[in-house]
């Protein structure tokens, strides 16, 4: 069994109109090397499911997004995601805007193969008013409480970036917070991971093995992508690239800014991308942000 692939082989599995979930959180541990490969492809009309960062922004900028299922889009240190904002304000997106908790609840339902999970989140807000497909349900027990029935968010494909993987599809997420990548992986028909380091077979101590957050049977493919989360963080290894973020933010204010960004950073390929950003020596040692 060998699940090693290239980013191009992953993107070759994608079809127009697919629903794709992304791991990470805002500007943290996003599968950006795979995102860049999607940007280089003809794939379109995607439904993007994400705790949004530059993954959402760049896919919006490139016109790849038909519908966004999200709770936010942000670069954190730069609060407003520039390309999400621009495309959103143009009225060009279908939306399912959800509470952050509802988002992971829907993925959890999909992973558990149940049609919905109950929650109070979203009741009495415009989240339910703007998304009439979100229904309420009354508790069948004596309390009779009316709750929101958060529907399963089933994904065609999950894309996740991890610290370490092996050729069998075992993965380690070693940053302090693993976010919800395990739920993204469970909700999908097929999960592809990119990894900072790839080994043939992991041979771990118990302490190391605890950083495995989902099973290899969920993983269809493994890509070796050093600095594959750049310009987002990949704790504990490297922080976000503020200089790159600033360049990216500026592109949203320039005429032809997205095409220029594509020409400079994306179209020439990942090796050229690393060269443009100081090489993996710089990218892999960017300091982690301190709050």
């Amino acid at each position, binding site marked *: 069994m060998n699940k090693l692939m290239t980013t191009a082989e992953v993107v070759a599995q994608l079809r127009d109109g697919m629903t794709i979930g992304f791991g990470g959180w805002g500007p943290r541990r996003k599968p950006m090397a795979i995102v860049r490969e999607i940007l280089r492809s003809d794939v379109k009309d995607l439904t993007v499911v994400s705790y949004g960062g530059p993954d959402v922004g760049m896919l919006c900028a490139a016109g790849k997004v038909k519908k966004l299922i999200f709770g936010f889009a*942000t670069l954190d240190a730069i609060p407003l995601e520039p390309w999400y904002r621009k495309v959103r304000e143009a009225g060009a997106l279908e939306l399912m805007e959800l509470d*952050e908790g509802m988002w992971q609840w829907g993925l959890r339902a999909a992973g558990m193969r149940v049609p919905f999970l109950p929650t*109070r989140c979203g*009741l009495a807000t415009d*989240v339910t008013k703007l998304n009439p497909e979100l229904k309420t349900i*009354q508790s069948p027990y004596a309390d*009779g*409480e009316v709750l929101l029935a958060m529907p399963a968010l089933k994904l065609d494909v999950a894309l996740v970036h991890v610290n370490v993987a092996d050729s069998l599809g075992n993965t380690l997420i070693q940053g*302090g*917070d693993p976010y919800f990548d395990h739920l993204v992986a469970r909700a999908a028909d097929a999960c592809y991971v990119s990894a900072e380091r790839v080994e043939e077979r992991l041979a771990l101590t118990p302490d190391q093995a605890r950083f495995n957050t989902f099973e290899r049977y969920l993983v269809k493919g493994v890509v070796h992508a050093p600095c594959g989360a750049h310009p987002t963080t990949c704790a504990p290894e490297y922080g976000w690239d503020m200089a790159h973020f600033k360049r990216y933010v500026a592109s949203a204010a320039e005429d032809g800014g997205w095409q220029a960004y594509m020409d400079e950073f994306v179209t020439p390929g990942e090796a050229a991308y690393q060269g443009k950003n100081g090489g993996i020596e710089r990218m892999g040692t960017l300091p982690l942000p301190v709050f």
Partner: protein
Amino acid sequence: MSNNTEFTLAELMIVAASEAWRGDGEVLASGIGVIPRLGASLAKLTYAPELLMTDSECFLVEEPIPLGPRGDHVPKYSGYMSFERVFECVWGGRRHAMIGPTQIDRFGQTNLSVVGDYRKPRAAILGVRGLPGNSINHINSFFVPNHSKRVFVEGEVDMVSGVGFNPARWEPGMRQDFMSIRRIVTDLCVMDFEGPDHAIRVRSLHPGVSFDEVQDKTGFPLLKAADMGETPHPTAAQLDIIRRLDPHDLRGAQVKGNPPGIRVPV
């Protein structure tokens, strides 16, 4: 800039914010943004050591962490609070968050999503984030550094992200009793929801601010608390703690012009 005041408006607001957590017991105190975070930290270091706090990432700390680059300071962790654990905490109701919404209405409903028409907004902000879930599950307070009618809107907020006391939004059978909105701390005053039917009242005015000024800058009618007075000034001990928690003076950039705490009426 006056040089005869001993504290800044930001420091006055930090002290006012710290009061929001009084009496909450053992809950997770989440101050989102510089002034709310310093407020929560000050509360924990003075009257509420029982509060839980994080390092603003995923670890719990018993000693609030100073803001920004830490030099030699190495945080001591007491536990773990990943985002997954935060949702478990939120849904269990053991949290009091102070956040800065883009808009707030008379019902305490908040907006962090868009300004203007939803489909083609004048401004896209962050998205609803955790506001729907936070607001319906645990105590919330708000922080507003620019008290104005743009924030305190007439009518409802443009996109109701966080729930409030608007009867028209609630259907029979929905539990409203886990919702609690405690305080609004602005650059002009401190308000609460303790008027009739949770109407918003001014609890205290910052030094040099009049009720009329606050009302003029608010899109809906305000009540005066019976004991409405002046917002308490920071004590020397509180200022020492604030300066220790914010060695890089990030608080100075939080209010335009970093004005002194005691303003002379114009």
